């Protein structure tokens, strides 16, 4: 089973509008453990961008909606835009959200409840974490890094061909599920290959050899059906 260590709020740098930040907002962010800086314009925010970029932004519309939306546009209009943007709007400003979906990821009504704002921010960052989680698959001692296309078992690099890697990736992404050879062939291969459906068996054999016989249990043969990664009922 995989345990993901989530970086705490302290590692996240938020850009905040307006500057100076209203006292209630400043206190909530401080108490939630976020590091933040308030700016009057988007340009200022970019000029002061921390190394590694802004983790997110909180933009409050209340007193200066025009300035607030300009800030949102500035934060989004970049090659690498700020990904987690939360806007705070009054009930009367709810209509402003319409047709601006691309400018924010979530919103919160002001006056806000501090616990609600904190929960919404946590959730925004959880979604991001889930996104990056997909680039790493861990199962038992097997680790697949989808970003670098590298696989390792118990810390030892596995030398895999492209198709071996793709097959292992597909199986490891769906632990506990049984796939027929035909399904694997169409989902994993899907291009000119001379081996026919038996290709799957050949690759499974090769993978087992590379994982080592003592770990062969990772890819199980399900008689007259196909293959299953890990044990039935397990899931990562």
């Amino acid at each position: 089973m995989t345990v993901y260590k989530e970086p705490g709020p302290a590692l996240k740098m938020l850009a905040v509008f307006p500057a100076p930040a209203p006292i209630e907002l400043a206190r909530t962010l401080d108490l939630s453990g976020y590091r933040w800086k308030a700016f009057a314009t988007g340009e200022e925010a970019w000029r002061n961008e921390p190394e590694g970029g802004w983790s997110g932004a909180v933009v409050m519309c209340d007193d200066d909606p025009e300035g607030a939306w300009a800030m949102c546009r500035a934060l989004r209009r970049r090659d690498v835009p700020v990904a987690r943007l939360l806007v705070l709007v009054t009930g009367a400003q709810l209509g402003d959200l319409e047709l601006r979906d691309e400018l924010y990821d979530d919103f919160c009504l002001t006056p806000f409840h501090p616990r609600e704002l904190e929960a919404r921010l946590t959730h925004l960052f959880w979604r991001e974490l889930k996104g990056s989680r997909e680039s790493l698959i861990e199962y038992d001692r097997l680790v697949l890094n989808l970003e670098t296309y590298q696989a390792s078992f118990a810390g030892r690099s596995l030398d895999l061909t492209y198709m071996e890697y793709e097959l292992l990736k597909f199986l490891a992404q769906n632990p506990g599920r049984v796939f027929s050879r035909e399904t694997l062939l169409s989902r994993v291969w899907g291009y000119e290959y001379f081996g026919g459906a038996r290709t799957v068996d050949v690759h499974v054999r090769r993978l087992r050899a590379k994982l080592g016989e003592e770990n062969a249990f990772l890819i199980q043969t399900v008689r007259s059906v196909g293959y299953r990664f890990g044990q039935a009922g397990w899931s990562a």
Partner: protein
Amino acid sequence: MQDHRRDYVLRTIEERGIRLVRLWFTDVLGNLKSFAISPAEMENALNDGMSFDGSSIDGYSRIQESDVLAIPDVNTFEVLPWVDGKSAEARVFCDIANLDGTAFDGDPRQVLRRNLRVARDKGFSFYVAPDIEYFYFAPPQDGSKPVPLDNGGFFDLTSTDVASSLRKETIRTLETMSIPVEYSFHEDAPSQHEIDLRHTDALTMADSVMTFRFVVREIAAMHGVHATFMPKPLESIQGSGMHLHLSLFDGEDNAFHDIRDSYSLSETAKKFMAGLLVHAGEITAVTNQTINSYKRLVPGFEAPVHVSWARNNRSGLIRVPVPKRANPLATRIEYRSPDPACNPYLAFSVILAAGLRGIEQNYELPLEADSNLFEMDDVALDKLGIQQLPQSLSDALKLMEGSQLVAETLGDHIFEWFLRNKRVEWRGYKTHISQFETDRYLKSL
């Protein structure tokens, strides 16, 4: 898909610190050829191929244009396991193309691809599992006879230990290079070993045979030993064969298997066998391409001499092994004449074509030859209508030259070059005065 595969290669090169990528391909005689490029050049090679002058490669020469393109087959990209981490290297097999991107007729890998496409259009994928025999010798000196390791004195350790640890290291290396091994053992002959590979599709297997020969030689050389695939290195001792276990799959099903038959053989299998038997003589020059090959194909050493088939008779050309636990997937036929000095791409091509011809034209399988053929005289064999395989490279070339099947299978370029090249080899041999002749005739005549 294509992009993912390219990314996979480029990222692996980066992540694993690969310094050199070796582009592998094969000449017409089955020699592994290679040139190395830097990682920086690899992206280009993947996009456009690498052009090189083919005129120095055996069988690639043409009258006009001599430049060809090596196009990496991304599926075969692998890190070479025996090179240490600091100077990591990788290899990738290449298809050879003309500058306009069309398949180059002189490339054996393209020939096999073309023949596998023919099979696939008929609904078949062709699976091969070779049993490869070879010898370990002391590093050869010019003019001297091969010295087997088992003959003592070469190593301080007992020679069996050295040879079996070499074999174990070889197997470990093969497995990390996606070549699973089924069995391996020390053969009866001194210093002879056999490694049996697990079956896979014929293109992958031909690549595997090339890798296999390279790995066996390389690992032996690292330990100061010479490994050879010469078909018959020692006169009185059995030679090295490469028995091929063959099957056709139709989707997930073994097209050679039929539970209702007493040998579990389907009609398809029987016609395929009949095709092989009818055309065996014509394809032998390809499956046994050296002068030395024919010194293995003699009676008394478990090598086939006659064109026949049987279930339990190891003197026949085709044996039908009894599958373990009646596993339908294991039903196969074993073609016993090829030797490990052949070009696997071309050998698999002509074997497949001969078998498919049998299926297409409904050849009838002759009766099984279940008594020991080695013990029958020519008259008895004639009565059974059993022919012999060609007795020399020259005989084999004559049969090949008259074969429409082999010409079509190999394509004109390779067919003609091969005959020309091998006739030159035969002429060179014909004028050679052997020790045998000197010993026998010099004093007495």
